[in-house]
């Protein structure tokens, strides 16, 4: 399973499915990460985590741990 965590900096992907449950999953959905959404990985923080994404025209920062819950194509 390829997740958002595996997308290299500068790369793009499309969200296939959100794993996990409860508050975190819903929060990621509310922020616009749902099936079919194109996402690009902009950069990674100086200490290696979190990462910065562009989704729906804005910048979103999430930890790699959370990115691992986002399955991508």
């Amino acid at each position: 399973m390829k997740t958002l965590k595996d997308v290299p900096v500068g790369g793009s992907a499309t969200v296939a499915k959100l794993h996990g449950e409860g508050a975190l999953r819903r929060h990621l959905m509310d922020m616009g990460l749902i099936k079919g959404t194109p996402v690009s990985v902009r950069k990674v923080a100086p200490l290696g985590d979190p990462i910065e994404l562009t989704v729906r025209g804005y910048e979103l920062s999430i930890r790699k741990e959370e990115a691992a819950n986002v399955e991508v194509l």
Partner: protein
Amino acid sequence: MASRINVALAGNPNCGKTTLFNRITGQNGYVGNWPGVTVEKKEAPLSSDKDVRITDLPGIYSLSPYSPEERVSRDYLMSGEPDVVVDIVDATNLERNLYLTLQVIETGVPVVVALNMADLVEKSGDKIDTAKLSRELGAPVVMISALKGTGVDELFRVVRAEAAKAGAAPAHRFDAAIESVLGDLEALLPSSVPQAKRRYFAVKLFERDEIARGSLSLAAKNAEAAEKLIAACEADCDDDAESIITGERYALIAHIMDACVKKAPARMSTSEKIDRIVTNRILGLPIFLVIMFGVYFLATSSGAFGTAGTDWVNDNLFGEGFELFGMAFPSVPDAVSGWLTAAGASPLVSSLVIDGIVAGVGAVLGFIPQMVVLFVLLSFLEDCGYMARVAFVMDRVFRRFGLSGKSFIPMLVSTGCGVPGVLATKTIENEKDRRMTVMTTTFIPCGAKLPIIALLMGALAGSADAPWISPLFYFLGVVAVIVSGIMLKKTKLFAGRPTPFVMELPNYHFPAIRSWVLHVWERVSAYIKKAFTIIFASTVVVWFLSNFGTASWEGGNGAFGFLPAMAGVPEEFTDYSVLAMLGSAIAWIFAPLGFDTWQATAMSITGLVAKENVVATASSLLHIADGTEADPELWHAFAAMFPTMGATAAFGAFNLLCAPCFAAMGTIRAQMNSGKWTAIAIGYECAFAWVVGLMINQFYLLSQGVVSIWTIVAIVFAALMLFQLFRPMPKGAFEDEPTVAAAAA
């Protein structure tokens, strides 16, 4: 018709909601908490019309049941209290903002959409067709600029018109297949649910929102039928109900965006250009360190702006007097004492006013110039969007001890004053993180603790140039935060999954001068208020404690009263004061820490009132007239109070780490919104400070070959702390708390 109108402001974080609230209310409202949670509630009348009452909802992205902010928002919207909701939409980020708009419209309360920052959109070349947007949403849309104040009058004209209308079910529709299920669910709702709210509850039922379902008291038969409908739809769509609804909302938004927005070809924005450098993988950390160094250099280093102001206040305004345009002005204490003499005040009153109030409040006011410079800079960094990047850069460090990058901002503010520092925790979304940050942020030495550090430096090193000692105590504060974070995270109180860090990085923008000034004022005024209320009252208490007592000296008559006015009073009358009695009575608590003299205890008591008092108390109890932290005479007298250097350091550690001043404790109480949590926070801080002091003193003694029962106690404490620090996360700690289910029950 002048009936009252209740207007709720809703919107995403960073959409300009606070700017609009401040602009339309003039900021003279009520600030408190929503019941039962640590979420701030702001209410104020509209400045132009007192009959319009504005309630500022927290900045949220959705109306899900998962966060306290979202729960209070939807509870308020569903309560029937608001007549109209103004939904503020950041036009530069329309797609994501409309996601909340759709949900707000679904609550069935009349909505007016305020399209903020529309001017920026036009500058970028994009075109938004507001008339079409209004039709698509089924709600009026008004273009405004909260920053410049344009469109605000028009907004409230529309709000008044909408307030006259009854609420209605939303007009927007999802995919036909989903609509048919939602229709069936609506039919299952009890007839007591009004027409305008049926759609909202049908959607919530579909999402399996436990809280909304719990409030419905659905018949068992209907609940079962609903569950069947939802399960069938989930099977059809091969997805779960929550995802289906979210997908439908975003699909609808995509449709609306297509119809109403004409995008200009994308260019690299200034914000992106700045970010390429500022959060650069290699340059990010050095840039951050340089900026922080710059901030503190400007605010606190000698000769810089802030310190120059503070020195002027201390030396001239409250010291020797000053000259302005060739005219000599007396200092405040001199002037006040002149007036008092002229008015024929009694020595009791003069002493209260000069030694109590003027000295106490003066000690606090002296910090204001430094504080202003610090907060001007920090608030700028926050308002322009850089602090979100700091959280991004620092998160990796903070998560290791159970906090997130967002906890860093309150800690930076706390280096100035703990009161606004604790207030700054309100930007942390997660309640556990927020509580933990409130509990630990005052370990960071604030401005008022610096003189204590300077005094310790003199006492320990015997000179003012021991530059390694002062960073040592800062380091102690930082270590205290880290150690506490790791230890507390493994207790029942804070156990749980590490809070996710999902944070929007807002676009950089130059803050509006007006809101920047307001932000600085909010923080400085929190400090000034502290000076004139709590510190004012407590300096009177300290003055009473140190000036009243019994005449128990040799030849004294044993009467209780105002010591300086008694016959035959020795010059060192504080030795007979209530403070001395109180200090002696509880000095035993500090015996294991090595400082059981009543003076040292009394200094800790006055420090609890306000850290600004400690050095002044030392000077008065040690009978060194006008002793300051830079006075070698005071250093020696201070050092002589303690049997060993270890005890001196233990005193320092205790006073720097224990519960902050009364003002900060009051702020903790307000922020925690719970007596229990306040007690936990302050109890923990004091206990932690005592244990650290104990360890410092006992391990110092041990290194000198002195062993006692307390050595063993200190070793036990050290072992317990190491155990708590290094043991793995206890089992079961990762099970999410059933907060949603509990709240529904």
